[in-house]
């Protein structure tokens, strides 16, 4: 695999050398993709970039945008300082026309801020922190969902799907809220608590843990004490896996387990096995296996991904990234340029209903340039596979809930 990587590197170097002779900077639209491509989140940064690349390849095959081909230039950034340096580098050396990103919200924050001073567009497809759009940066547009959407969808799932399945009214439900303790888990959990209480659901307690902790038995025992109907956890893969394993070991058997953000990939399946996972809900990015009615083109994306990378997508974030890039290219087309003001104007005018794009998104930006039509979906693990079950429009035909309440 290392040899393959080196081979890729050499090929890229040769191609780059060749291309500098062939394509002049002005004939190509360059988009800088800022993500962590190294460090603990490298997998997800790379996955997003793969989504971008697929969208770009598709568009280039049909002539590009504004008569020009599109090229992605990667900028590795794992923390805000690196984000600033990456933007500087991409603007001055690679002469990018616009930016796209970003798996880490803090990086998006710093990078978009720096991009603003170069007057370059920052188009965010995946970062979820609320303040990215709250701060009103003039070059920032978020086409993907945010923390509010995560919380919304997870609570809607509890109230509209889980409560009926348990044959209970929301006001009779007891929920334990677990989350990892960084801004990601905390901001989502804060909103979840508010929304749940608004709907009359009882929040028995809130547990905050470090996602890298060596032991999470205390989190499980504290939740177990309150005997909740729904155990709702927002976190990353390492803590999801450890919590699920520990729950199984400790005989913690809530009627419903709902994970938010992660827990829908092979990594979790490998960790706890299909039997235990049966019936677990995961609120996450839309998957390529959603119905064609919900997300037109999702199947085509899946096929393209498999062809280009010889495997299934590692995480559903790539579909959202792919969709985000697609929309960006359309907006640039409509604007006739990559100029920030023109793109923002064109984006503001865009109005596409839900289910226009492969991830099921539509396009309608609010006054803070947050796309209001970018919902998450909820899958349920069934037979070792992730089946989209909520909202109802996203549900694949014939799919029904399994193992709810959990046996």
């Amino acid at each position, binding site marked *: *695999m*290392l040899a393959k*990587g080196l081979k890729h590197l050499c090929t890229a170097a040769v191609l780059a050398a060749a291309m500098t002779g062939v394509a002049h900077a002005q004939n190509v639209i360059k988009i800088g993709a800022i993500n962590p491509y*190294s*460090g*603990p*989140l*490298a*997998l997800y940064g*790379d996955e997003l970039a793969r989504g971008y690349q697929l969208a770009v390849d598709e568009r280039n095959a049909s002539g590009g945008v504004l008569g020009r081909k599109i090229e992605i230039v990667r900028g590795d950034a794992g923390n805000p300082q690196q984000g600033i340096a990456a933007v500087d580098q991409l603007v001055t050396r690679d002469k990018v026309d616009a930016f796209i990103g970003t798996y880490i919200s803090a990086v998006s924050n710093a990078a978009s801020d720096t991009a603003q001073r170069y007057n370059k567009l920052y188009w965010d497809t995946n970062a979820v922190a609320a303040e990215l759009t709250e701060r009103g940066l003039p070059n920032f547009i978020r086409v993907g969902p945010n923390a509010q959407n995560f919380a919304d969808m997870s609570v809607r799932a509890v109230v509209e799907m889980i409560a009926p399945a348990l044959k209970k009214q929301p006001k009779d439900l007891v929920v334990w809220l677990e989350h990892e*303790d960084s801004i990601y888990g905390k901001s989502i959990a804060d909103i979840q608590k508010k929304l749940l209480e608004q709907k009359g659901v009882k929040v028995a307690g809130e*547990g*905050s*843990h*470090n996602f*890298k*902790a*060596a*032991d*999470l*038995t*205390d*989190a499980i*025992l*504290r939740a177990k*004490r309150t005997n909740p109907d729904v155990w709702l956890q927002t976190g990353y*893969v*390492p803590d999801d*896996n*450890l919590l699920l*394993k520990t729950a*199984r*070991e*400790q*005989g913690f058997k809530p009627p419903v387990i709902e994970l938010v953000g992660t827990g829908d990939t092979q*990594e979790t399946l*490998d*960790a706890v*096995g299909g039997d235990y996972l049966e019936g677990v809900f995961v609120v996450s990015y839309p998957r390529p296996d959603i119905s064609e009615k919900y997300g037109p083109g999702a199947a085509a994306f899946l096929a393209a991904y498999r062809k280009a990378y010889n495997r299934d997508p*590692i995480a559903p974030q790539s579909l959202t990234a792919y969709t985000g890039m697609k929309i960006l290219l359309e907006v640039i087309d409509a604007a006739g340029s990559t100029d920030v003001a023109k793109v923002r104007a064109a984006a503001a005018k865009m109005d596409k209903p839900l289910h226009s794009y492969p991830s099921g998104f539509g396009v309608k930006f609010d006054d803070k340039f947050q796309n209001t039509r970018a919902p998450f979906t909820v899958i349920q693990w069934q037979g070792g596979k992730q089946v989209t079950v909520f909202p109802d429009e996203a549900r694949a035909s014939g799919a029904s809930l399994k193992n709810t309440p959990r046996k």
Partner: protein
Amino acid sequence: MDALLHVLVIGVLLGGIYGLVALGLNLIFGVIRIVNFAHGELVMLGMYGAYLAYSLLGLDAYVSILVVVPALFVVGLVVYRLVLQPLHGESSMQIFATFALVIIFQNVVLAVTRGEGYSVPSRIAGHTLELGDVRVTVSRLAILAAVTLAAVGLHLFLQRTMVGKSIRAVTQDRQAARLMGINVERTFMITFGVGSALAGLAGVLLAPIYTLSPGIGGNFILAAFAVVVLGGLGSVAGAYAGGMIVGIVEAFAGYYIDPELKQAIWFLIFLAVLIVRPSGLFGQPGAEEIGFREQE
């Protein structure tokens, strides 16, 4: 009331994990006086070794001990010979070099695996035993058993075997040991190898519990250092007891106070102990007199 017992059990099992990781570090720290920041990465390599043994050879995690532990022993020998021995006498540079190793090990594994979170299944590891109301997994019991056996074994090794005695001699006084005809450099190399092998053992036994990632070593290294220092430099019993203390404090703090604060709480207790007993709980007073000056 039986939550108390439950939490105590959790703490002891967690203590076993910390103790096992710290055992190898304690040996290296105590004998060669090297602060090996790459110890967490040696544990990580042990975990990935278990994964490789499983995916390539189909070995169960516990069986792969036979392959991974010797492999890590060799890795330790090589690392010592190529990196640490040439820097003999330059303690600060040795620390710098171990940091470079951390970066290299983590990123080589990242490059090869892209960072995907592997799991190592084990048929026995997942079984749970019920002792009354308390449920305990085989995987954690195995770790407790392993750390106890390893600690006892290490103790016997150091006390009864010639190699062990030469290690102790070198720890006490290098000059004198050399005068007695002990090849100090070779002793150090073997010590580092044994310490790395112990890290590999920890890695294999931890693999069924956690999701592997290139940076997972970093999750344990700070606790391991705290345990080693708390227990007292070079004391095997100290590392064992230190692990238990940290584990139990963490478990109680996590359950009764707040899981978010548990790390801070045991770090504070660690600091408090250190201030009162600078040589650690079981260390010889004066053992903390290891500045960055070499003895020779």
